[in-house]
Structure formats: structure tokens, C-alpha cells
């Protein structure tokens, strides 16, 4: 599965990068590559079964933490 994900991301890079190089959009190429690598790493972690935190759980725990701090300070 990871190999498939890597292949998809490589294909996207091959599709997008030549046009950016041709137009000399170096900054665009750098940001695109950075975001692509970030998505690749996170996708690989996801498909390999690594338990990434749930967004809402983080917010709820943060809210509960703030609530506790306010309660103890009052």
C-alpha cells in the first residue's frame, strides 16, 4: 500500500514539476515539493497503521484543560 501511495505522489510530481521549471517558478516549486512531502509522510503513516491524533479529540481535550485551569484559579 505504501508503495502505491509513493507511486501516486511521484506521478503527481512528474506531472506538475516540469511546467513550474519551464516557467522558472522556483518558489512555487519549493512550496509544492514541501507540501507534497508533508502529505506523503502523513499518508504513509496513515496507511501503515500509525495512530495519528484525532483533530476533534485534541480540541476537546484542550477545551477541558482550559476549563480546569479556569476552575482552579477561581
Amino acid at each position, binding site marked *: 500500500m505504501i508503495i502505491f501511495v509513493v507511486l501516486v505522489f511521484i506521478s503527481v510530481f512528474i506531472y506538475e514539476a516540469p511546467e*513550474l521549471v519551464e516557467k522558472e517558478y522556483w518558489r512555487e516549486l519549493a*512550496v509544492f515539493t514541501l507540501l507534497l512531502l508533508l502529505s506523503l509522510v*502523513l499518508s504513509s503513516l496513515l496507511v501503515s497503521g500509525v495512530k*495519528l491524533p*484525532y*483533530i*476533534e479529540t485534541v480540541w*476537546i481535550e484542550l477545551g477541558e484543560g482550559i476549563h480546569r485551569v479556569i476552575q482552579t484559579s477561581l
Partner: protein
Amino acid sequence: MDQGKISPWQLTLLVMSFTIGNWIVLPAGTEAWQNLWLIMILALGEGLVFAYLSLLLFRRFPGKTLFEIFALVFGSVGGKFLSLLFLWFFLQTGAAALMIFVTLLKTTIFTATPDMALLVPWMLIVIYGCRRGIEVIARSNEPLIIATIFLLFISVLLVLNIFDPANLLPLFNLPLSDALWISVGIAVFPFGQNVLFLMILPRVNRRQKVTGAVLKGMIGAGGYLLLIQFLTVGVVGKVGEIYVFPSYEFYRMIDIARVLTRLELIPLLNFMTMGFIKIMLCLYALAVGTAQVFNLRTYRPLVFPLGALLLIAAFRFAPSISQHLRFVEEVNPYFGLFYSVFLPLLTLGVALVRGWLRRRVTS
């Protein structure tokens, strides 16, 4: 950057679709159940006030996106920080709609289909549409919103034999403070999420009509959601409170002479079209916003990686729909108030004070 232009009418329709979005199947404030449709009128009023205040920003900085306004008001570093906060908001809004999309399909029709098989083709279409620009998004939205409104009017006729006005009672049995708090929750979700349009308004060809177009869209969407909620309560009654997707259950009950039955495809279709536009607009705002944060000349290459991030965020958004409901009830009002009211008002306030100080110094 995107050079496409949209008309004020197309903006109105986009605002309608974006607001209807996922609320159509998963309403907020269900604890008020029989009072919900009434509270929605109050929430719409509050939402319109919030939207008007945010639109004052656009009036003061015509032709600028929210991120450009941040840079002008707070400087480069402060502006980029606030822009990053809003990028997270766009990501989270899109991921929530995507998560509800997959949960609805998995719990109703495609119970044995893997999440990936539902989400990946969907995201590919969203990415494709987003790369084509705002003009294409607005044009593809037109037939979809017209179909959605048409299906609503058909629904009114279909439920005539099962609609019981007694189901709407009791009314006004909620403490005023609770009703007000629920109305604030609805004012920020779904109405307050329209703050995203501050990224799109410079693409409207007649800027003087922007305020009216946004407010009309919100009123249209509010009326649509109010009617759906009214029909749902009138058909399913008190028991609707316990359903996760009440409008889906209400369409299941439609039975016209045992010929027209199992019409639950209607809310699914409505959500798939409106949710599609909502996710596409979130991805568009995310891509254009990221391009502006990094001073890029085009947003198009960023759409795929950001779409992949949106997909990952949808997968890891909430462990269950019950936790999402808890989030909507307990956290979302604060979250929404911060993004939809506090940050735009803070920006407007700072811009006004800076303008006043500048005038004093020059005089």
C-alpha cells in the same frame, strides 16, 4: 493567481450551497429539537449581523482577500500568523464536511465499502474542479443548487400525507438562555463559516453588489434549512431528536400509495451536491490562501498536496460521529465565534484605529 470572475448572482448561489453544505443532513442544536426551526430564525439574524460586520472589512479594503487585509493591517509577520490560523480553519471546515460525507454513506448505503473507495474518487473530482478556478466552481454550482431547491419543493408535496402539525408541539419550552446559546452555535455554524468568502470576494465582477449578494445567499440558505427542519420535526416528531441524520430518516418515511417509497436518496443527493461545493470551496480557499502566504504567482500546483492533506484530516477528524456531535455542541460555538466574529472584528477595529491615527498625524 486565479483570474476568473464571478457575478454577484453566482456568489449568492455559492453562499447558499456553502451554507446548506453538511447542515442539511447533520443539523446543529438538536437538543432544542421542536424549537430548532424557530431558533434558526434568531440564528439567521445573528449570522447576518456577523456577516455584515465581516463585510465591512471588504468595503474598507476593496479588491483585497482576507489574507491581504491581514498583511496590510497587522504587518507581514502578524498577518502571516493570522493567515495560518485561517488556513487551519479552512482545512478543518473541509475535513469536517468530508468526514460527515463518508460517515453518512458508510452508515446508510455503502456499509461494506472501504472509506478509501468513497473518499479518493470524490477528492479527485474536487481537486480537478478546484484547479479549474472559481469561475468553473460557480458555474457547476448553478445546476446543483437549482436541483437542490427543486427537490425541496417536491419534498413539501411528498410529505403532505404524513406531516402532523401536532408533532411541532410543545414550543417555547426551552429556557431563554439555552435558546440564545443554541442560536449562537447555529449563527457560527453554518452561517458564520461564510467568513471563508472573504477569500473569494475580490473575484466578483461588480464589487458594489457584494454585500447584498452574500446576505441574500445567507437568507436563501437559512430559509431552505428552516423549511427542511420544519418538515423533519413535523414528520418524525419528538423521536427525531435521537437520530444522527434526522432528515435522512424523514425521507425514509415518505410513502405515496406504496409506489413512491424509500426516497432517502433525496437528502443524500442534496448533501452530495452541496457538500461537494462546500469541500471544493474550502480546498480553493486553502490553496489560494497558501499561495498568498508564500507570495506565489499560482495556486494550482498546491491543490493536489493540499487535497491530500484534506483527505488525511478527514480520516483523522473524529473517532466517531457521537464525538463530532459533542464537538459541535460544546466546542464549536467558541471555535466559530473566534474565527467568524472575533478575528474579523479585531482586524476591522485595528484598521479603523490605525486609519484614525494616520489622519491625526497628517493633520
